[in-house]
C-alpha cells in the first residue's frame, strides 16, 4: 500500500459478471495469473451471494504497471456479462471508453449507453464444443483478442495451471474458439488489436 497516485495511464479495470457457478472467479484468476507473468501488478476482488450456485456473482481485476493504491474497480475498461442477472448491476461503472462483452444467448438486455457492446455466442460455442460450462473460457479467448492485456502464451500457461488435466484439452479448444469468434465477427471493437492466431 504505497504509491501516491490515483489511477494512472495504462491501468486496466476488468469485471466478469453473471450468475454464480459460471466460472467468473476462475476466469479472473486465470487472467490474473497470466497478467502477473507478463509483468502486471494485479488486484483481484470479488463479490458473490451466499448460495452455492446462482445469484449475482462478479470478479474484478485491476491491472497496473505500477503500484496499485486502491485495489477495487472504479471505472471499467471491460465489462463481461454472461447472464441476465448481471445485466444492469455494473452500469454505474461504465463510460464511453468501456467495452461491454455480453453472452448473446443468456443476456437478453445488455446495458444501453455510449459504450461499445459486443454480443458474442460464448454459450452457444461452448455447447458446440461439448460442454456449455466452458463458456467462461470461450469468453476469455474473445476478451484477449479484443483487448490483448496479456500474451496468448501466458494465458495458455495460466489455463493449464488452473484447470484439471482431464479438462485441459477442452479448455484449450474453448480458448481458441473464443479468439476465433472475434476474427470471424464483423464490426468488432478493436480488430486491429487482435493478436495473430497461433
Amino acid at each position: 500500500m504505497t504509491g501516491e497516485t490515483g489511477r494512472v495511464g495504462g491501468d486496466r479495470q476488468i469485471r466478469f459478471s453473471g450468475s454464480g457457478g459460471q466460472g467468473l472467479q476462475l476466469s479472473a484468476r486465470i487472467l490474473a495469473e497470466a497478467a502477473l507473468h507478463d509483468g502486471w501488478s494485479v488486484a483481484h476482488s470479488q463479490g458473490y451471494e451466499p448460495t452455492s450456485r446462482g445469484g449475482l456473482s462478479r470478479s474484478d481485476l485491476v491491472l497496473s504497471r505500477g503500484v496499485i493504491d486502491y485495489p477495487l474497480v472504479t471505472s471499467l475498461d471491460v465489462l463481461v456479462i454472461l447472464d441476465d442477472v448481471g445485466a444492469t448491476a455494473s452500469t454505474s461503472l461504465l463510460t464511453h471508453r468501456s467495452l461491454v462483452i455480453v453472452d448473446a444467448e443468456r443476456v437478453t438486455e445488455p446495458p444501453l449507453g455510449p459504450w461499445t457492446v459486443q454480443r458474442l455466442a460464448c454459450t452457444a460455442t461452448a455447447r458446440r464444443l461439448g460442454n456449455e460450462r466452458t463458456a467462461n473460457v470461450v469468453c476469455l479467448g474473445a476478451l484477449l483478442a479484443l483487448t490483448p492485456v496479456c500474451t496468448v502464451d501466458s494465458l495458455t500457461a495460466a489455463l493449464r495451471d488452473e484447470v484439471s488435466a482431464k479438462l485441459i484439452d477442452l479448455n484449450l479448444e474453448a480458448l481458441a474458439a473464443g479468439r476465433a469468434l472475434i476474427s470471424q465477427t464483423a464490426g468488432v471493437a478493436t480488430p486491429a488489436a487482435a493478436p495473430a492466431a497461433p
Partner: protein
Amino acid sequence: MIPVGRRNLQGNHACAYAAIAAGCRFYAGYPITPSSEIAEKMSLELPRVQGVFVQMEDEIASMGAVIGASLGGVKAMTATSGPGFSLKQENLGYAAMVEVPCVIIDVMRGGPSTGMPTRPAQGDLMQARWGTHGDHPIVVVTPASVGEIYTETVRAFDLAERLRTPVIVLYDETVGHLVETVDVPDLSDVTSAQRKWASGPKETFLPYADPGDGVPEMVRPGDGYRCHTTGLTHGENGFPTQRPAEVEEMTRRLLGKLERHRDVIDRFETVRTGDAHIVVVAVGIAARAARRAVVEARAKGIAAGLFRPITLWPFPEAAFREVVAGADAVLVVEMNAGQLALEIERLVGRRGKVARLNRISGEPIGPDEILANIEELARHGHR
C-alpha cells in the same frame, strides 16, 4: 510449503502462511465465511510442518483448544468472523486474564447477528476492544492489504508471545478475499519472538510475579515449576484472591503491561499529515480509498492527510494527537454506523471538528465519496 517471491496471493491465504512462518503449530477452528480460506490453508499446511489442525465442534471449543495448546507451549491461533467472534469472547477474556499468548483472526462481514456472510463491513471495531467482560488488556491490529496481512499476522504472534496476551488480527471481507501481487518475504532465517520461560529456583517461583517489565514468565510443561491457572482473580502465586490490595496490584499490572510496551505495540501510517488541515482516519479497505482521496484532494489544493492506525487497540493516541495538533477537522471513514469516531471524538475533544462518513450497506466506501466529503469540509473553511 510457504511461497516466497512475487506472486498473486489472497489475503486469507497470506494470513495462514504468515502464521506458519511465525511459528504457529496449532490451529483449532470452526470455518465461517469470509474467513474459511484460513482454516482450509492451515489444514493443508500445518501437517507438513508437524503442526496440528483440529476442526472443532464450534467456536467456543475452538478458543478453548487454542488456549490449551498455548498453555502446552505451542504457538496457537484460530480464525472466525463476527458470529463466531461473539462466541469466542468468554474464553478470550480467560486468555487475557490468565495471560495466554494466542492469535485470533476476525474477518469482518456484515452484521449484526448472521448479517451478510459474503459482504464486507467494519462493524467489529469496538467488539474487538470490549467484546469480553471486565477491564482487560487486548491488542488489535488492522491490516489494509494482502502484504500487510502477512506482516501483521507475523507481528501478532510476536506481540502475543512477548506480552503474554491475546492479539486479534482484524480485517474486512474485502481485504480478506482480495488477491494482490505481493513479494512474499523469505522468513525461514528469521527467529520470531518466543515467550519467556520460567527460570531460577523452583522452590520460590511465583507464576504471576512481575519480573520488572510487567510480563510474568510462563511455565513450560515438564520443566518442574509449580503453576496454578485460573480465571478467578489471582495473586502472584496464581491462586484466587479477594484481598483488595493484592487484587488492585495484580489487575493494575495486567492492564498496565500494554502501556509499558507501547514502543512495540503502536503502529500507524501517515500520508501527508505534516501540514494537513483536514485529517482522514480510516482502517482496512476504507483506508485505501481514503489514501487515494487524500492524494486527489492535494491535487485540488486542499491540505488533506491520512492517519491510518495499523494497531487499532490500544489506539496509537500519542501519534494521533501529534498529527491532529495542527488540523482543524478530522473525517472518520468507517464501514459501520460510527465506532472509531467515538475514540477520535474523545481524542480531538473541543480542539476541532470531527465529521463522519459511514456506510452500512455491505458495500465499500469509494475514493470519490471520501473526496466529496473532504471537499465539503474544505468549503466550510477547513483548509
